[in-house]
């Protein structure tokens, strides 16, 4: 029977993978995917804690996180599409016009 810490370690690992993904990848869509990974890592901790404390709050927060994730995905992808129309590229470094 795995302990709470195991779940936490797992989610820590996942979260870091996501974080690394955000930086390593040069494709906006993949970066968004990495963000989703991070979100899910957090969700895992929530569910695990909820289970540990025997409350439903963990799952409810997961519910909210998912809603937010959906919103984020919708808007993010819309932006990606708009960007892709302007330059035929999805590389975030292609969009550095908004600076000094």
């Amino acid at each position, binding site marked *: 029977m795995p302990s709470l810490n195991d779940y936490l370690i797992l989610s820590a690992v996942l979260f870091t993978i996501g*974080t690394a993904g*955000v*930086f390593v990848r040069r494709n906006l869509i993949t970066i968004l995917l990495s963000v989703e990974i991070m979100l899910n890592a957090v969700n895992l901790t929530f569910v695990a804690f909820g289970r540990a404390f025997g409350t439903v709050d963990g799952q409810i927060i997961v519910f909210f996180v998912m809603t937010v994730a959906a919103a984020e995905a919708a808007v993010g992808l819309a932006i990606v599409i708009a960007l892709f129309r302007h330059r035929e590229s999805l590389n*975030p*470094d292609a*969009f*550095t*016009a*908004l*600076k*000094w």
Partner: protein
Amino acid sequence: MMLLLIPLFPFLGFLVNACIGKRLSKSAAGSVAVAAMVASFAVALTSVIQLAGLPEESRHITQTVFTWITSGDFTANFTLRVDPLSALMILVITGIGSLIHIYSTSYMHEEPDSEYARYFSYLNLFASFMLVLVLGSNFLVMFVGWEGVGLCSYLLIGFYYTKKSASDAGKKAFIVNRIGDFGFVLGVLMLFVTFGSIEFQEIAAKAATMHPELTFGTLSLATLLLFVGATGKSAQIPLYVWLPDAMEGPTPVSALIHAATMVTAGVYMIGRNAVLFSLAPDTLMIIAVVGAATAFFAGTIGLVQNDIKRVLAYSTVSQLGYMFLAMGVGAYTAGIFHLYTHAFFKALLFLGSGAVIHALAGEQDIRHMGGLKDKLPITYWTFLIGSLAIAGVPGLAGFFSKDEILFKTYEGGHMILWVVGMLTSLMTATYMFRLVFLTFWGERRHAPAGHGHAAHGHGHDDHGHDAHGHGDHLHDAPKPMAFALIALTVGSILAGYIGLPHALGGSNRLEKWLEPSLTAPHVVAAAGEAPAGEPAVAAEAAAEHGEEHGEAVGAGVELGLMGLSSVVALTGIGLAWFFFVSDPKRSESVAQSFSGLRTVLLNKYYVDEAYNAGVVQPIRVTSEQVLWKVVDVAGIDGAVNGTAESVGGLAELLRRVQTGSVRAYAASLLLGAVMVFGYYLWR
């Protein structure tokens, strides 16, 4: 409720004329304005009748229109209140106001439509503000009217704004009034601090029950400040200078605002707070002295002025001085009475002079008039009666009121003031009849070519020329003007009889009528009996001591004084006749012999010059050299620009952070997260 309608009608008239006046024909605009005034007069009349029906102790009608300001425990309601005093005022304002409106319809007829509408909109606005002033039941509402009439007076004095002198006069009036209003506001604030209220009634009640030692300092100061406001509004020394210049406005305006109504606001205000002032004897003394001084001073100037309207203006100042004298000696009734009669005959005189100017195509210099007696019969007779009234010839309005004042002064024991008053009334008679004789009697003295032209800056030019071309058949006042003149003449003859003194077998009805307004509210006074009844009684005593002494001194003295003053009046007229009719040379010779004094008088004692040198210039110089060139440019602008520039410079540095690379932002975000997290782990 009806009270609101009284100021509302003129205001509506104002709105109509101000908004769509340009598109209205003259007759339409004029009739709108007149209708508004007449309607308001009707309402005023009905409400006063209703008021008279009420029992003496509760003789007032109050209407709270809306709660205006509420902050903490302080609330100011927009409340209108009619009591005997304000009843008298609204009747005068609406009544004479209507007449003057009617008069104006034909007087201003040469103006282009838009100007015409503008004129009437201003006039209506003035009326409405004036009514608010007298109807307001607390200082705040009164102050609204107070400032409002100031504004209208400014607008109307500068009505011919294309004329430099006119606009200057407007500004002068406005600024001088500001000085007075400043004092007024301070006084109001002080009263509020002292009594925690701005309602006339409450303040009066509280003050009446206050301990004398409490009242001593604060009340004197507060009332004094209020009086400063009054001097501004009612053209007393030292702030009278604006009124003579105000004659730049159209003559009916001078009649309405600068003779009948607005300038008496100060007097009214003092009457309104009679209780307060009675509790501040020092202030009363000052008021009395200032009043008397102004009366005399202005009278002397009036003797030598040559502009028909300026003479009247100075006489107005001096009559106002009379009123303040009355207030000062605690004869509030007398003061208000004089205010009321004066409204009639001074309006009449102004309108008469207006008729003359109208007939002479804008000629205002009496040296170029004369011999109009037969040309302008109506004007002449009405003007004559007005002059008799103001001179104080027995049987006419002025006689009773002026006499009342002098009598009260005398029995108040202020001998010097009484003498000054007498002298002034002598002068009054003199300069008034100088005016009459020079204007209407003798030969027609035409203006030297071009001079007349210069004199009439009014819109009368077009119809000025033909008047000059064949000056023989001048036309007398047209119907509306004639109507107004005659109505006012009747007024000036009869107005006095409501205040017929006991001595002449009349029971001074006016005094009875006004009493409730001038004494502390009975209920509260009664409540105040127990702890500090003494001052309350004192207050009543002070307010009514005229009556008591009336018995004390006795009718004999009063009669004697009347006789004396009538003699004085006749003497004055005689003097005028002696100098200006029987042999005009005499006046010249006298003028020669006292040339120095004459020039001084002609230049109004150089007061304007003194003010200019002592007040205006220093302020101008300091604000130009110091405030503008140093404080504003270096200090304020420097601060503003400095802020802007420093922010800009900082931005120059900070914007380097904006690499525009999403990943960089994310990195910084993560860095922050890592550091915060690390901190919590580490500590």
